[in-house]
């Protein structure tokens, strides 16, 4: 009974503490990113009771069932307990299924539902040690990762088609603020769809950057591009300037 009370108490404290931390706030800049943040928080909410259960058990057992004076004495030999095993199996299985269905399976659907839609903007990305090369499809604009700022429109469906040069190595195209990544593999074209929901600038939030997320040798950590997400009108303006 006491153990159960401690567990409930710890769980409440843990959950409240975690929720008030609001670890992501509103920093995700895409619909997909919001979904992923929510999935993370949901998983954490489900993990906390399991974790507090383990801690409670350990603490309680250590305090309550210590051999008096460290004496050698055997406990009653409970070998197994069908009801408990069944109960445990049942709830872990249920929990597991819950996690699989949501956020697991719904996530798969959510992150792919844009496949069929026509994107507002397509950017072709090529990885090469240690830079990214961008080409705005149909816009006649190309960028280099080192010096340029990758400018993207807000409120748009953006598709990145990603590959790496032949003879090069595997890279990974990751935009932390969008929460999305996919590898850039030589000889293979991968893609990533995002619906932007926020404007933002690298200078205000470092997560507005393209970061290589697959070890690719010496300058792996420097293989990044700063990003700015602007309102669509501003974006058109910028594209026009660049193309000129």
């Amino acid at each position: 009974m006491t153990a159960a009370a401690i567990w409930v108490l710890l769980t409440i404290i843990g959950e409240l503490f975690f929720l008030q931390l609001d670890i992501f706030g509103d920093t995700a800049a895409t619909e997909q990113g919001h979904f992923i943040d929510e999935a993370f928080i949901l998983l954490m909410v489900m993990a906390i009771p399991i974790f507090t259960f383990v801690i409670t058990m350990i603490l309680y057992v250590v305090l309550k069932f210590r051999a008096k004076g460290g004496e050698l004495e055997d406990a009653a030999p409970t070998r197994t307990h069908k009801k408990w095993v069944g109960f445990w199996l049942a709830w872990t299985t249920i929990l597991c299924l819950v996690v699989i269905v949501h956020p697991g399976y719904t996530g798969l659907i959510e992150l792919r539902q844009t496949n069929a839609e026509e994107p507002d903007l397509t950017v072709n990305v090529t990885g090469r040690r240690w830079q990214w090369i961008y080409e705005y499809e149909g816009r006649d604009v190309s960028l280099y990762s080192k010096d340029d700022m990758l400018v993207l429109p807000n409120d748009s469906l953006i598709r990145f088609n990603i590959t790496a040069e032949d003879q090069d190595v595997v890279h990974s195209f990751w935009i932390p603020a969008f929460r999305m990544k996919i590898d850039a593999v030589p000889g293979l074209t991968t893609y990533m769809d995002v619906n932007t929901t926020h404007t933002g600038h690298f200078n205000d939030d470092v997560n507005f950057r393209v970061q290589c997320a697959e070890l690719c040798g010496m300058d792996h950590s420097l293989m990044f591009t700063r990003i700015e997400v602007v309102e669509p009108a501003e974006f058109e303006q910028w594209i026009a300037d660049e193309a000129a």
Partner: protein
Amino acid sequence: MTAFMPLVRGVIYAAIGFAIGAAISQGITSMTGESATEPMVVLGYVFAVIGWLMGIGMWKSWGRGWFGKSTNSDPTGNWGRYLRFNIDHKVIGIQYIVIFAVVFLLAGLLAMGMRYELADAGQNVFTKNTYNTTMSLHGIMMVAVAVAIMMGGFANYVLPLIIGAEDVAFPRINALSFWVVPPVVVLLLLSPLFGGFDTGWTAYPPLATQTPLGGLLFELAFLTFGISSILGGMNLIATIITQRAPGMTWGRLPIFAWSVLAASVIALTATQWIAYGLLMIIFERIFNMVFFSPPGGNALLYEHVFWFYSHPAVYIMILPAFGAELEIISHFARKPIFAYRWVVWAFALIVFLSFIVWAHHLFTSGMGESLHGPFMILTELISIPTGIVFLSALGTLWRSKLRLKIPLLFALGMVFNFSIGGLTGIFLADVATDIALQDTYFVVAHFHYTIMGGEIFGAFAAGYYWYPKITGRMYNENMARVHFGLMFIMYNITFLAMFVPGTVGMNRRIAEYPPEFEFMNLVTTIAAFGLGISFLPWVYNMINSWIRGPKAPDNPWDAKTLEWQTASPPILENFEDFPTVTGDPYGYGDDSVEHATYGRRFDEGDGHGHGHNVAPAEGD
């Protein structure tokens, strides 16, 4: 001085072997045109290993027998017996434990270097390349420790004892699987001198095919280590099947033996895949083949092959640690293992599932999207059998008469840590969250929680638990408590702090990072130094107590399993009086259960219906 002769001979023969191999390779390559260093190194290395093995004593105690000559494999003697090809499983266990304790400290020292570099955002002591090599070396050395310390070290030492055998099924193959390990360590330590390898321990090609010579040394090392694992796994399986004491039915097998059996099945089969993956990289390097490099090759092939080994491999690490954990908890709680049969089934299920979840490392790799769903589901299912292990641990503790000795503290620490490690695994198994978290410090924190918090804590528990048996002496309790306290606290600060930057956008395998993440990294670094310091009392305690600790009784923990029913340390063939098992090993609080009775060694009466075979085992 003579004690060092086998080592000296091994080194000389290895040098001769290298010269022969290199000369052959030079001969061939000069015939076909360009002379190349890499084929020379590969062939030279193969011959060097053969030379090394022959020199260290394999020829004398094994090879001669193939040609009908007399062999001499005397496993007795003073400390010199640890420095040669020795077929006593207890010697081999100690050899493994000692060599991997040293590797652990060296790799930990590399981690200290990395943490020093990562204390602030900029680039300080390391260049980018040396950082990458340091990181990769830390990774692979620690993985080797994690794979070998339980299976090679404790399983070798304890398993034959705990099942009442005299030795493993194939003592000479056992010695062979140990003696290919020193070349692995030497190659890894040499590799920084030859340009290192900046690929991480995962060594994805095409990058891995383009590293300097140091990368080739790494590949050869990992390959050799694989051979050791395969032979070790084979030996342990055969031992458990054939060497159990009479009466030791499957239902009476100690849980540690079950866990070793489960892990051995993985080691036996999955390890071949990494051998194949590395061989393909080596072929690509020396024959210009195109497995992975487009045009012609497929870059994702290696990732599949690699994880088809390396995912099951994490269960090679954790399963024996689970076994040791439950074993220790039962003995110190003075209660039978709760739900023993369920745990055995859970182990079996974990082994089965471990083979079909590898692609959860590839959710962001560009592999077919139709694979995401199945692999996510299968991965998450592993939490159910793993949960059974937790149920068993907690169920055994419940209503027990707990004695809070050091091994138990480490085992409890392991339960605590692994719950964090396992639960964060679920975040990674979920495709949605993994797309954000892959390749961030969240993953780094996850696997330090599972490997270090889980397995290494388990290995320390096992180390303290079996220390009196192995050394015949008692460690210093107070110093061990200091070690545990400091290690547990510092460990948790170090790696809990790593989750934070990982969740908010810091990727792994980088020497410099955006200054926003500086604070948490500083916390990690400071705690990591504390963690490093916590091993000093351990090192001192282990060495000092071995030399001048108080003599340990045969059974200091009053445990019922067989390894405690013989001398500490045990005699050459383990048991003076031969055990016949009559009940399960965890009969605490139940006087009707007696684990074993003891009879004369060569009991001619044969009253138990087991024939014996007095002729020496042939062949191996």
